[in-house]
């Protein structure tokens, strides 16, 4: 635990744990809404926000927050108006984000070290300002999810049923898009733009394998996510590898281990069943 004596590591761990809690909370709804790739699309828009912010002299994380929320609103509008081509709309925003990022970073000649830390995550660049933004966003996200919990599940299950019940689905889904954008920016600092979506999806996918109810699945996803971040950040420190890779690989190894354990238990149950039939 000697790595905890370093201030930068304490900051990275704090930011990492907040991210690990908030990512799967939003991810639980994103997965059941069949929008698992939205985090990737928003991540690329966040990249444009970082480079645009740098170009305009705005704090890059704030630039990312502004542009990602704008992009999330656009994606939601396209999804509502052209539901049959929702993925195509997402792809257009995705490409626009990366194209803007290339243009902004080229114009400003942004240093490659800075770009890489946003793309792959960094444990040494997490500042006090970053932690304040992360904690602020996370508090707002968790409070809104708590208040709208049942409505969000119902909308994910069937928007029409929710509408008939008098729930303002357009406003709530737009608000949810904003929350997703905020979480992408929260996670970007630690895990990196390219892999922030993975922390929203992989722990939730692992939790789904346990076949629990919605709240229990979300709780299990948060545990898988926190474990991934703790192991990933520690190994990032000792192996001198960008944390995005180690955190997400840990989450994926947890997923694979859970699949193996689950399949093993299923085979054991089947074997028990067939041997008891043979005895009878």
């Amino acid at each position, binding site marked *: 635990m000697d790595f905890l004596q370093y201030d930068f590591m304490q900051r990275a761990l704090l930011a990492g744990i907040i991210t690990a809690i908030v990512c799967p909370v939003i991810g639980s709804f994103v997965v*059941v809404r069949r929008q698992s790739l939205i985090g990737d699309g928003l991540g690329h828009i966040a990249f444009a926000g970082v480079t645009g912010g740098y170009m305009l002299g705005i704090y890059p994380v704030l630039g990312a927050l502004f542009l990602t929320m704008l992009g999330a609103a656009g994606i939601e509008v396209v999804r509502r108006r052209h539901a049959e081509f929702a993925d195509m709309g997402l792809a257009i925003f995705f490409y626009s984000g990366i194209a803007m990022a290339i243009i902004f970073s080229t114009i400003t000649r942004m240093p490659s070290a800075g770009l890489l830390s946003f793309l792959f995550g960094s444990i040494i660049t997490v500042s006090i300002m970053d932690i304040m933004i992360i904690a602020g966003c996370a508090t707002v996200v968790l409070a809104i999810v708590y208040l709208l919990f*049942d409505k969000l*599940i*119902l909308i994910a299950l069937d928007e029409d*049923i929710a*509408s*008939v019940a*008098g729930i303002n689905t357009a406003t709530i889904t737009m608000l949810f898009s904003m929350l997703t954008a905020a979480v992408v920016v929260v996670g970007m600092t630690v895990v990196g733009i390219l892999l922030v979506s993975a922390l929203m999806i992989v722990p939730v996918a692992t939790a789904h394998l346990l076949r629990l*109810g919605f709240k229990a699945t979300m709780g299990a996803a948060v545990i898988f996510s926190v474990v991934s971040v703790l192991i990933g950040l520690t190994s990032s420190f000792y192996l001198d590898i960008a944390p995005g890779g180690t955190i997400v690989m840990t989450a994926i190894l947890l997923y694979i281990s859970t699949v193996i354990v689950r399949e093993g238990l299923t085979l054991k149950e089947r074997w028990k069943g067939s041997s008891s039939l043979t005895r009878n």
Partner: protein
Amino acid sequence: MFEVTLSNIEFAYDYNVVLKDISMTITKGDFVAVVGPNGAGKSTMLKIMAGLIKPKSGSVKIGDKDISTARVQGLIGYVPQNYGKNVLGFPATVAEVVSLGLTLGPTTTKHNQQAGKHITNHMLELVGVENLRNRRIGELSGGQQQRVMVAMALASNPELLLLDEPTSGIDYEASARIYDLLGTLNKNLGITVVMVSHDIDKAIHCANKVACINKGLCFYGSSLEFDATHAGARHLWYYTG
């Protein structure tokens, strides 16, 4: 007095007229089977009654409230036809799904957990799925899922239950049980039911009224009259709108 009144409803997708001049009154305790061929506008009419889409002209009133302007939260329980695509793999238990219905009503019982649990248990018993309460909804058969969705709709204590093809894709026995359940809810609890169905024979057996639609309203009256007048030639009504 609770009454659903449709007045001169017209609806078109672009220039394709789907419904024209539909007027009918559904009184409290009615069980209306909406029948008609594919593309006749049955589901569109149900969506208009649910307030999901607005008619081009005409109005739908529940009591004295026009559903396009007044909030009718909790008055209507709606079970759509195509919820199955979302339910598949949905990580929520049957009890969790049914308890979502508590948030649909005008006064939320969510704050009182004991009352909420009691209502959820009662709804599960009412539709006969109490033994499945801890199973995930996506793991159930089509008939069981349909019962769970009906239980969720009922949890808000609605006056009017709208169902779009509740037996679609469900085997014969499970369909019969769904019709029995709806008949029981209608008779014993006095819930007004409007159900779109392809299965005319079964639908008119449990409904007291039939609305036959093919763009316009071809027939609206008692199911006995429909059965007596058009037995063996019901299909003719499909082409006379």
